């Protein structure tokens, strides 16, 4: 009997250690998963972010755009529900809310390309604020056009009158030339065109399952240990 107790003690310790390890692991995995799997933040909105001189030389920020920002970063009154067109508190005239959805908008942010302005419905609504940034004063019809999509703007650019408009804009408006001469600012570092995709998101479900499984395994080990103790006590009583 005594010998049995001596042999069981290390295994009991090992079992408890393993159970604790499983439990801790499961808890960590669950915690990490729940943190990562938090659904879209309802207090965030999508903003097209512009840079450079506010109101004068605003150009679309490179890289990821629109950006997902907290409502608190808008200039509207606190406590008021954000709306499309609300200004982002970066001082730029053109940085405005373009979507309130959780998912990123699929429409590209409006940009200035080759001196021809591309406007969105949101910008149309805030046309007063953005008028100074319009680089095509000689072709107001371009900005007044009702179609805000990139494709529509591309049509304007590529249609036969476009070269004339571009030429006129370039001749009359220095910013158009500046846009064409922006190429030297292009560095030779590789663009970031890779990513993992939804792999991490897909694994969250697996993480949760494994976490739950580990905790269950820990519970089973603990239960087995309790049963073993009871049997031992019972055998000792006998």
């Amino acid at each position, binding site marked *: 009997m005594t010998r049995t107790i001596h042999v069981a003690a290390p295994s009991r310790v090992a079992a408890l250690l393993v159970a*604790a*390890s*499983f439990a*801790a*692991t499961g808890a*960590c*995995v669950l915690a990490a998963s729940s943190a990562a799997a938090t659904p879209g933040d309802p207090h965030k909105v999508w903003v097209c972010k512009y*840079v450079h001189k506010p109101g004068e030389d605003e*150009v*679309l*920020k*490179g*890289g*990821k*755009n*629109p950006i997902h920002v907290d409502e608190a970063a808008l200039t509207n009154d606190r406590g008021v529900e954000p709306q499309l067109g609300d200004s982002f508190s970066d001082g730029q005239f053109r940085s405005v809310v373009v979507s309130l959805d959780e998912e990123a908008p*699929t429409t*590209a942010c409006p*940009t200035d*390309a*080759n001196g021809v302005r*591309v406007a969105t419905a949101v910008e149309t609504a805030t046309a007063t604020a953005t008028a100074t940034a319009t680089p095509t004063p000689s072709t107001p019809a371009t900005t007044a056009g009702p179609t805000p999509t*990139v*494709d529509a*703007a*591309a*049509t*304007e*650019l*590529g*249609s*036969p009158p*476009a*070269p004339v408009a571009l030429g006129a804009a370039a001749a009359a408006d220095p910013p158009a030339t500046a*846009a*064409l001469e*922006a*190429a*030297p*600012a*292009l*560095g*030779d*570092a*590789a*663009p*970031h*065109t*890779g*990513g*993992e*995709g*939804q*792999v*991490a998101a*897909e*694994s969250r479900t*697996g*993480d949760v399952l*494994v976490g739950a499984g580990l905790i269950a395994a820990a519970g089973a080990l603990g239960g087995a240990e309790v049963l073993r103790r009871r049997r031992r006590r019972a055998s000792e009583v006998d």
Partner: protein
Amino acid sequence: MGAGGWFLVDRPLARAGAAAAQEAQAAPRAPVPTVHGAACTAGPPRRVVYPALGVDAGVERIGLDTVHPADAKGRRRLGNPSDITRVGWYADGPRPGEGRGTVLLDGHTYRNGGAVFGEDFATRARAGQLVQTVQPDGSVCSYRVERVWAAVDAARDYPRIITAEHLYDPHGPERLFLATCGGSWNAAARNYEDISVLVAVPAGR
């Protein structure tokens, strides 16, 4: 506890998901037909078609990458499209059909296969293949792939190639440049360490 740390750091489940995604992506994208249209007219591209790689995607205007820091000379790297299913066109650079300069295009490659380019870009892109841009007026600008740098080191080799080959040249002969990530995967950074680049020259013009 060690097991827990291993799980959290290495995230084998994420890798398992990646493997599953790769399996899903393993089937190569079927080629798409070449596009036919009027002779190329200069303008911003609306679609990019890479028939041999099964790519037919819309275009997103891109600029410089302002997310990452500028280099020592204050220059910024080429931006990338926010929509991973589109091809990015550097709108401050030359336009297809303009007759001069390098038209700069790039696009994403995602491990789950959800982006415009697949991980097989490096192995399927070949000299002689056709890359086309569909212009706003429906005309088509065709380019013949002249050279491919497949899965080169993005940090070390890419800048050298760009500089040596003048791939960002806005004033030289008209060319089309297309880049996307791929090759070695850095699990820690969750991104590729390599990038593939091709250069194409006008065809049929």
